[in-house]
């Protein structure tokens, strides 16, 4: 009989999360729809804490909320930012440097010309683009304590291509502090997971097929990772039969023409994954894969090209499941 109690305990453990519970909370923030799913003791409390954290970060990072430091910075050229925004700015500028400008957090004045922030889409004239584009000089930005100066009239920053990745990292930290060991954070399609699923298996994250909503390029089995996708297929407008998508090439001020449909980055750091998904989309296939070969020890890449080719780097080859024919890219291909 003595053996019964440990055996029952084992049964409970093997049943997974049944002794603790799962809670899912959804809300709108950062111009998107977010869902946080948590398994653990008192998961509702942890989700509420995470939600409050998002709302605070949203206010700190927003370029159009008049209360945010970023808004004031863009309006006046100088402002005190929240510590989170200062940290994010320095991460953004670092990604600008390591991607040789393919990721650029200071393009807002050009993005506004195309009408992407307020959805009043239009094709700006070449002169308009040139005059806004010549002010895009992130090197000039200075940070002292929490006061940021742009030092260049007409330059505006925005964190749209990195804020959700950073936020997911901070949410995972918040949940860990609450003692949570199993969670999924989905910030409008930017996904991060903590640990494995409540039943002990890996989380399964599908990568959307840009050609057909509701179908998928692949499914990835992950734990303690972020999966972040960028593509021109989510936000775009058409004018005179031509498609203009929202990812601008920072070098030209025009939508990036990189012959890629989507770029997915899988890695431990959501901030880095978010910035790189945009940067590698801008770079195009060859440059992107070379960047991965030279820097990609802590991330992997899934590229989908305009002519339907699917390329995955070797680190994800054993966690991917796909109905497509895909090519595994090896680091040794680039030596």
């Amino acid at each position, binding site marked *: 009989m003595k*053996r019964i109690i440990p*055996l029952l305990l*084992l*049964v*409970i453990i*093997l*049943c*997974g*999360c*049944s002794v603790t519970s799962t809670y899912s909370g*959804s*809300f*709108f923030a950062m*111009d*998107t*729809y977010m*869902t946080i*799913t948590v398994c653990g003791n008192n998961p509702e409390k942890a989700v509420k804490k995470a939600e409050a954290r998002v709302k605070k970060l949203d206010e700190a990072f927003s370029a159009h909320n008049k209360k945010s430091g970023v808004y004031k910075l863009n309006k006046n050229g100088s402002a005190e930012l929240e510590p989170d925004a200062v940290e994010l700015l320095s991460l953004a500028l670092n990604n600008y440097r390591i991607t040789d400008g393919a990721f650029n957090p200071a393009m807002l004045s050009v993005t506004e010309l195309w009408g992407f922030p307020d*959805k009043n889409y239009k094709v700006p004239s070449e002169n308009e683009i040139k005059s806004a584009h010549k002010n895009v000089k992130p090197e000039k930005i200075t940070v002292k304590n929490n006061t940021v100066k742009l030092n260049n009239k007409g330059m505006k920053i925005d964190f749209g291509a990195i804020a959700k990745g950073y936020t997911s990292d901070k949410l995972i930290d918040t949940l860990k502090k609450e003692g949570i060991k199993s969670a*999924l954070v*989905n910030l*409008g*399609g*930017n*996904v991060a997971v903590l640990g494995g*699923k409540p*039943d002990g298996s890996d*989380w*399964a*994250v*599908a*990568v*959307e097929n840009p050609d*057909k*909503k*509701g179908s*998928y390029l692949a*499914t990835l089995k992950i734990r303690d990772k972020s*999966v*972040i*996708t960028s*593509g021109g297929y*989510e*936000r775009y407008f058409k004018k005179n039969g031509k498609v203009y998508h929202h990812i601008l090439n920072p070098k030209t001020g025009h939508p990036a023409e990189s012959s890629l449909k989507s770029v*997915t980055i899988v890695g431990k750091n959501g901030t880095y994954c978010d910035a790189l998904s945009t940067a590698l989309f801008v770079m195009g296939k060859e440059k992107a894969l070379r960047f991965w070969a030279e820097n990609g020890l802590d991330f992997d890449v899934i590229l989908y090209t305009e002519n339907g080719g699917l390329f995955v780097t070797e680190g994800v080859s054993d966690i991917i499941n796909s109905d497509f024919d895909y090519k595994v890219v090896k680091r040794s291909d680039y030596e």
Partner: protein
Amino acid sequence: MNKRDFIAIGVVVLLSVLGFVFFALKGSGGQTVKISVGARVYGTYPLSENRELKIKTDAGYNLVEIKNGRVFVKDADCKDKSCVKQGEISGGSIVCLPHKLVVEVTGEGDFDAVAR
């Protein structure tokens, strides 16, 4: 190990499997479509039953159709019509940001989230 140990291990494995199956089946019963507007759940419908839903709120109008195991936004009076452009889904969600409308397919799926 003696015979009783084997029986004990057998019982543990059996109970675990039963427990797992119970929790896996709990609350399932096919996929459902959950429609919400802001924080309010508008309704939940089986994905297997065809129907048309006219959703009018203060924010605006969306026409959602469930057809042949797929769901899509057929029409809407929002500015960018991004919800209509998102097409048909049988997993994941469609979001109309201006109207704060979310059409979500939940239940048995092959994955837990969609990166996009």
